[in-house]
């Protein structure tokens, strides 16, 4: 059952804090043009089906894929919409994989589209209303409104990440300077990526530490920006991919596992994630994806990783939880230069989410960049040859991890 899936191309639109020159459908068509430019033999009419996703609460438009049918070229074609909050891009990419792997008759080539135009709406309202329903319950049960306004930030990613940061820093005994070093590496890498948002080639650690706190222990200089942008990936079968590009990238393992609600819990009932930096969901996701991909020793077999880290402590955390480094050793590895551009296991050479965060699209940009590194077409291409890479996504209120493991060799053994 099922068949091997390959990625033939990936494309991006330019990301900026306010893309006031395009509407949402035009932003998507910009990314689709870039994707088809990388695979010149494919035309829009060759696409058999579409998958689309974004976070609808930020723009004030419900199910916008209906509006942008013609801009995507999806007129009279099958289309499915997948949204999972912060991990939407990763889920759309995984759903693009499943659409091809299922082998429905006549559906061989699938375009996966993820986008976000946050400047159209009010991001803080969108983020606050994640937990609004649960918090209004707490209000009815007696908690006064001033206390609730502080809890509102617990629903957003920054609330959950700050708790993760405290426990992680307590375990590994790192300081804020180590976090700032990660930020500097990310922003300098973003300067070489054409589509990234915050390009700062000359950033220093002192400049990062000079900003006020958003939520202890994270400072303004360390957090990700809010960007507008879109990302598109082209999934197809093994045979067709060989005609579309020189080095097809085979998708060998996918997983998206969540543990439980973090911090707040449903109906205000708290969370069973006592140690927020434990991340059972990430461990299970990586187990499932690596088993499907036939990866037994992630540290040795994976050549490049794009981990979803809007905050610098998470870049260190996920490299441990996804099996790349031993527990508690990620800061030492980072300081030793193993995750550098020239290092043994480069991480986030596109600048990562820390430099560009269009919420709906960013979890897809991670597997897209990882795939382009295998193809040799990334804008910040690492010097070593990349054979196997992973791209991950993270969702805030739930600690949902989406993971896609790719390689230039197809994996057929386990079926």
């Amino acid at each position, binding site marked *: 059952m099922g068949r091997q899936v390959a990625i033939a191309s990936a494309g991006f639109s330019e990301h900026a804090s306010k893309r006031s020159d395009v509407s949402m459908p035009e932003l998507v068509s910009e990314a689709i043009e870039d994707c088809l430019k990388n695979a010149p033999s494919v035309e829009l009419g060759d696409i058999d089906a579409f998958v689309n996703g974004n976070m609808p609460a930020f723009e004030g438009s419900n199910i916008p894929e209906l509006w942008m049918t013609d801009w995507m070229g999806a007129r009279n074609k099958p289309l499915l919409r997948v949204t999972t909050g912060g991990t939407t891009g990763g889920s759309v990419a995984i759903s693009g994989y499943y659409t091809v792997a299922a082998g429905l008759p006549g559906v061989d080539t699938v375009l996966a589209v993820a986008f976000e135009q946050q400047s159209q709406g009010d991001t803080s309202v969108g983020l606050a209303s994640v937990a609004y329903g649960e918090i209004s319950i*707490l209000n009815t049960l007696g908690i006064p409104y001033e206390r609730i306004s502080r809890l509102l930030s617990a629903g957003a990613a920054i609330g959950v990440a700050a708790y993760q940061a405290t426990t992680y820093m307590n375990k590994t005994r790192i300081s804020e300077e180590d976090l700032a070093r990660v930020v500097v590496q990310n922003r300098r890498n973003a300067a070489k990526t054409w589509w990234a948002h915050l390009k700062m080639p000359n950033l220093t650690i002192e400049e990062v530490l000079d900003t006020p706190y958003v939520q202890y222990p994270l400072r303004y200089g360390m957090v990700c920006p809010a960007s507008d942008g879109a990302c598109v990936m082209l999934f197809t079968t093994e045979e067709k991919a060989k005609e579309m590009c020189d080095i097809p990238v085979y998708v060998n393992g996918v997983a998206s596992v969540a543990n439980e609600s973090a911090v707040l819990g449903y109906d205000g009932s708290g969370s069973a994630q006592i140690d927020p930096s434990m991340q059972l969901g990430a461990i299970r996701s990586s187990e499932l994806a690596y088993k499907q991909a036939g990866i037994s020793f992630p540290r040795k077999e994976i050549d490049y990783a794009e981990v979803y880290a809007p905050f610098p402590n998470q870049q260190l955390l996920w490299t441990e939880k996804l099996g790349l480094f031993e527990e508690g050793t990620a800061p030492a590895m980072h300081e030793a230069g193993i995750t550098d551009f020239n290092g043994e296991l480069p991480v986030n050479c596109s600048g990562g989410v820390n430099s560009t965060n269009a919420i709906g699209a960013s979890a897809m940009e991670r597997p897209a960049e990882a795939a382009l590194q295998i193809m040799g077409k990334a804008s910040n291409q690492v010097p070593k040859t990349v054979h196997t890479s992973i791209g991950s996504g993270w969702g805030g209120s739930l600690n949902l991890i989406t993971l896609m493991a790719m390689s230039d060799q197809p994996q057929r053994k386990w079926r």
Partner: protein
Amino acid sequence: MSKMTQRKSLDYVKKEYVRTRTQPGSWYLSSYNYKFNITHMKPFLAKLKEKKLVANQCSSCNRVFFPPRLVCGKCLVKPDKWVDIRETASVSTYAISYLKDPETGEVQERPMVLVHHDGADTVSIAELSPDVNVKDTYVGMPIIAHWKDERVGGLVDIEYYDKYKDDSDDIRYKK
């Protein structure tokens, strides 16, 4: 918005793009009614009035939920036992949020703590006593619930958490 994030938006403002027409609109959250269950909360709230803490427990995985939970996700059943919970707890993790007061404009420093009661398997958000300096808190700090003088049977009956005497303070690793 800090200087760091503002930079990129100005580039696009200066470019000679044809601008799109902007249209105002809003998303009315106030017209929604949120319905939720209170069947699992009622015994808990009644006991709060008597200064007693109870939690419910799932009999198939034996996890204890404090505050009480409707469904145990691991086993997909409703927890059916009620157990007593101690007032002592420990800090599981903490963060400090800096919120701008909309009226006065000053930035307030408010600590938020995730509290792990002894005997429970879940954490919940709470406040610390105003006497405790947030910068002194550490992961694992022992605390105890401080009851309000007049209790109404709501979640606010535990006003905040006091620092509890810590015998191992002198042999602990310093930060």
